[in-house]
């Protein structure tokens, strides 16, 4: 009987500490909060808009040509088909490599690293304008 009382005391204290901690640090459950989602979406759209600016700018390459001159609204970029065999490079590639091909060739400029913020912004815009289209990797 004495032990149960001792242990229940410890249990009570543990429960109280947990309750205090739970209030300070909400339960790490699976759901995202609406505020987090909204904030993260906003962060994403910031990058999409940055990408749109770059996509429509004439300073990505060396000849003033901008991506939207051939791809209005990023049409005809078909991001949903990557990775795919790319004839102009001779092997299966991901989208960023094709963006670099365009930067080097029609735009006569320099390629960007895969994790360059400019590249990520361009890819975000290109994918965003194609939202809703099912994946079709490898499709020509």
């Amino acid at each position, binding site marked *: 009987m004495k032990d149960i009382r001792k242990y229940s005391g410890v249990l009570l204290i543990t429960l109280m500490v947990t309750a205090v901690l739970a209030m300070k640090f909400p339960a790490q459950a699976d759901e995202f909060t609406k505020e987090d989602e909204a904030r993260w979406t906003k962060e994403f759209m910031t990058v999409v808009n940055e990408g749109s600016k770059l996509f429509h700018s004439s300073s990505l390459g060396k000849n003033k040509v901008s991506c939207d001159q051939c791809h209005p609204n990023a049409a005809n970029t078909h991001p949903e088909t990557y990775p795919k065999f790319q004839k102009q490079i001779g092997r299966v590639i991901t989208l960023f490599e094709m963006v670099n091909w365009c930067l080097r060739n*029609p735009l006569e400029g320099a390629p960007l690293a895969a994790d360059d913020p400019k590249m990520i912004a361009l890819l975000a815009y290109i994918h965003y304008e194609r939202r809703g289209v099912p994946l079709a990797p490898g499709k020509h």
Partner: protein
Amino acid sequence: MKMNRRTFLKTTGAAAMASALPISLVRMAFGEKSPAKDFSFAYISDAHIQQIEGSKFVRNWDMGLTRAIQEANLLTPRPDFFFFGGDLAQLGKREELDHGLEILSKLRGKIYYVMGEHDYYLDLGKYWESNISPLWYSFDHKGVHFVVLTSILTYDTWTHHTKWTTPMDRMLAMARLDNPEGSPFLVGEKQRAWLKRDLEKVDKSTPIVLCSHSPIQKIYKGWNFWTDDAESVQTLLKPFNKVTVIYGHVHQIQYNQVGNISFHAVMATAWPWPYPKSYVQDPSHLPNLTVPMNRADPFFERDATGWQFINLRTGNVDMHYQLPDNGNRSVVFNRKAGRPQDAKYQGVGSRVPPQTHY
């Protein structure tokens, strides 16, 4: 009488062929004898000469126009005249227009000019009107009435908006095809009134060819494949038996038949544009008749670009697209069906497979 080149050329109205073929082959291809009223003219459009800096211009677009002219100079028999379909410059700059005119000066033949939005919005057509051509006019040729409109105007409130701190601001805004803050093309009241008066003098049986830059149809507003007062213009054309509208701006093959009016888009010499359907976030209305072109290979700079010659056969237009990197295509007026038809790539049911990857 033994046919030789000189006697053949003397028989005016002979249809033009794409390559410099000797006379006998030309006769074989066309079969029946052409009545005297038939003639050919050629169309070069959308050169988009773009300045990089100083005397450096984007080589790709220069080459496109240069090649079209070189090929057009090899056309035989010679077409009666040429049209330039608009967008000679990319940003309407004097340097760009001058450089374009310099390249065009190598073309052997008379040129009629159509204004494009890339030519207009920097100085609102001032340089064009004083150095190149009036903005709207008409003329008659071998019994056909030609009308040229500047169909890329827009609402005054946009054109003269205070938000344009410089003319180049406005030009850049109109130059961007997918600009959400753009403004739809218009023929406008002034020109429609002029057109009405002009057409009053024309007999209803006279074939009419209307050359404009924007489509005089409503295809896709987001990219200004659009003319806001299209219906009003079409109404003015309705009373006539044979009307063809030829337009540029879209940089792709398009054709349509609306009542008595045939519509034909011309190719750009500079670069191709995707079909509006490939922008999935927005609906569009490409004419059902059109068999689209395949997606271009960006390595080959002339892929899906080109120029065209037109045979006017008894008042209807047969358009023969000269595509340096693709199989040439012909969109010919089918007299029985009463509409243009692609001679090689058929309608939806029997489409040649490559014409589906766009």
